[in-house]
């Protein structure tokens, strides 16, 4: 009897629940009688880092916000929780009839973008830092290049050359024997950073010989200390690698391993605490995002890959109706760098961080604090700004001017920074630069 009662209650509950749900389910969305022109919708699909990573994903969403502000588009964010979400997330966005552009953030989405873009030929797809078209070329050579897919890539070698020169000028100013670079796993993409950095260092020694003979020193193969740590996640490895470099009196260490920057920062903090320093040297150099705020006074600058610009420009290309034409012309790859132009319009994506960018990234940090509920910023925004400015002002002006000069020369094509992507080239350049 008791069991019967319980069963009945259960059934009643269930019935109530189904009753409650039933009327809602089949209701079709009411069609507006006078269809007003709908705003164009773009969807941004994150990688598993999600929001609050203060790097690729946050920058991509910032690009979406900027596009919303300037072009009046509607932006949908889709967060991927696991790798298996990439394909269904891109598909969900592509099936939304209002969406015209789907952006996948980060190279991990390359395979998924190639597959989904094939299935939705009337939608436009963009990958940030991806190589989806080369996957198409390998797997479906007849379809290459897909007319609706664009990989946005960046000229990291040029940005790396600028920070290589900056670090070398600091070495000259503080009479230090080395600069350093901590790399992640040795993949061809990182060779661009490595040789760019070393090339910039050598360019700086030549500049010094001409313009500042009293501070000049010859470039030697052991001037740049460099380590491939074999990881993009083990922060301890970044700490160990950087510590060894600072022990050899490196003036600045370039972070080319994402989160390992926190390990480099740890090594710097240790020295700062032991010697009671409020500002570098020693310095480190940030990458991808503006990382200058992480430990204000000790990050001399960051080599920024403006993911936000990638989202912003490709949205503009779609709105202007130029997207597919450009895909056809460029085989589906859009290079954003220093002085890069599309149809005469400047579309840049690489720069050395300035004091002016800092505010945008502090704001990003504040949003991340709100989103994650965790403390992100090391100090109040004003204090960060003040300390970064003080650090920059403490360096002699000729350093910043010389870096600006290199940027100008790269922009005008007066110098060519080598872009290394093959095994042969990397061997050749290491022979030359160490």
């Amino acid at each position, binding site marked *: 009897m008791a069991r019967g009662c319980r069963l009945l209650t259960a059934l009643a*509950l269930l019935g109530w*629940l189904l009753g409650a*749900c039933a009327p809602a389910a089949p209701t079709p969305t009411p069609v507006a009688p006078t269809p007003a022109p709908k705003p164009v919708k773009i969807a941004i699909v994150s990688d598993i880092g999600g929001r609050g990573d203060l790097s690729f994903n946050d920058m991509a969403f910032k690009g979406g916000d900027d596009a919303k502000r300037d072009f009046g588009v509607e932006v949908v964010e889709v967060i991927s929780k696991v*790798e298996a979400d990439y394909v*269904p*997330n891109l598909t969900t966005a592509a099936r939304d009839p209002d969406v015209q552009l789907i952006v996948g953030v980060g190279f991990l989405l390359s395979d998924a973008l*190639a597959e989904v873009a094939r299935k939705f030929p009337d939608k436009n797809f963009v990958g940030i830092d991806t190589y989806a078209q080369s996957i198409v070329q390998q797997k479906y050579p007849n379809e290459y290049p897909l007319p609706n897919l664009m990989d946005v890539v960046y000229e990291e070698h040029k940005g790396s050359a600028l920070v290589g020169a900056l670090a070398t000028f600091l070495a000259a100013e503080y009479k230090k024997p080395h600069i350093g670079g901590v790399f992640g796993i040795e993949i061809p993409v990182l060779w661009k950073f490595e040789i760019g950095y070393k090339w910039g260092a050598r360019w700086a020694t030549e500049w010094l010989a001409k313009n500042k003979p009293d501070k000049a020193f010859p470039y030697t193969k052991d001037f740049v200390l460099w380590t491939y740590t074999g990881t993009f996640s083990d922060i301890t490895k970044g700490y160990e690698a950087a510590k060894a470099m600072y022990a050899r009196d490196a003036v600045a260490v370039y972070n080319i391993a994402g989160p390992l920057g926190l390990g480099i920062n740890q090594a710097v903090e240790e020295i700062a605490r032991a010697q009671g320093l409020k500002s570098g040297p020693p310095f480190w150099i940030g990458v991808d995002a503006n990382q200058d705020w992480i430990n204000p006074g000790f990050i001399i600058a960051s080599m920024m890959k403006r993911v936000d610009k990638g989202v912003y420009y490709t949205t503009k290309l779609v709105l202007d109706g130029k997207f597919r034409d450009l895909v056809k012309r460029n085989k589906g790859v859009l290079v954003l760098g220093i002085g890069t132009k599309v149809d005469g319009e400047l579309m840049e994506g690489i720069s050395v961080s300035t004091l002016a960018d800092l505010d945008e990234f502090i704001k990003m940090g504040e949003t991340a604090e709100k989103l994650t509920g965790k403390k992100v910023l090391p100090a109040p925004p004003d204090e960060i700004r003040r300390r970064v400015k003080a650090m920059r002002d403490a360096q002699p002006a000729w350093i910043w001017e010389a870096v600006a000069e290199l940027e100008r020369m790269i922009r005008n094509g007066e110098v060519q920074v080598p872009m290394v992507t093959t095994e042969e080239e990397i061997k050749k350049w290491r022979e030359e630069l160490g």
Partner: protein
Amino acid sequence: MRRARPLLESLVAVGIGLIAGGALMLPFRYHPLKAYQALFQGAFGTPHDVMETLAFATPLMLTAVTFAVGVRAGLFNIGAEGQMYIGAIGAVFAASLLPLPPGLHILVATLVAMICGALWSLVPALLKIWRGVHEVISTIMFNWIAFHLATYLAIYYLAEPGRAERTRPALPTARYPILAEGSTLTAVIFVAILFCLAVYFLLWGTRMGYEMRLVGENPEAARYAGVQIGQALLWSFLIGGMAAGLAGASQIIGRPPAWSLYATLGNVATLGFDGIGVALVGRNHPLGGILAAILFGALQHGGRFMEYHAGVVSELVRAVNGLIVITLAIPELWTLVRRRLTL
């Protein structure tokens, strides 16, 4: 009537879970019915979505078997996670490096993964049988060893040249056929369901299964009846290991588009732990596990529509899903606790 009771209880739990999840959405000013509509239509609205839901369900029904078959023999085996990593690595090795003819290649890669998973469960099994080391401790430790071993092998020995983020992909001869163009569901789901059915028949249709369950229900009686307890435990671990290994393989040779293991283990991570929840919701029954896995798959795949169409932020989607799962697990958890208390 008696057989239907667990099913009914679970259905009631589903209802309560949904109501609880809805209650969680209200203070954040989301519309629960609209959100659930997006969830259900997202998970089952079109054949394509049903297939995606099943693709998410496939590995979970297997890792649920690992836990369920342990509980049936009186074990709390939470080693599916690690056994699955090792199975995945075995699958990568066999699928990407051994040049074998089509058909045979799939079979070999699947079997290698299952054997790897079973071998990884062997040490905790023997520690338990010979030295009485509690399986919770040993399997947790083995999960971590497996994590680091798999990461190491993936990065240093199996990485695809030039693409450090993942291992070499499975050769086309080792890939389960995709069931419909553009879907991520492959024929590996049939293997998974067959495996669950086989475990069901083993547990309730054979002497070995009877002995395993007897050991789980009442070890003293089992000993008195002359059951080899060690052997029953060993089989429970090994079958669980095979299920977990197969789950790992299903993500390597049965899941486009990567067909490989990410160096972060990101495309298999947590599937083993999720299996514990699936097993509890499925009342530690291999067939109940299949239904529960489909429910989990629906929450996972349909969840993105809650986010996309109803605008529920992704963190809350996860919280609602978690709440539903916890509510669903309560009946079986209660049974487990009650059994402990009365023994």
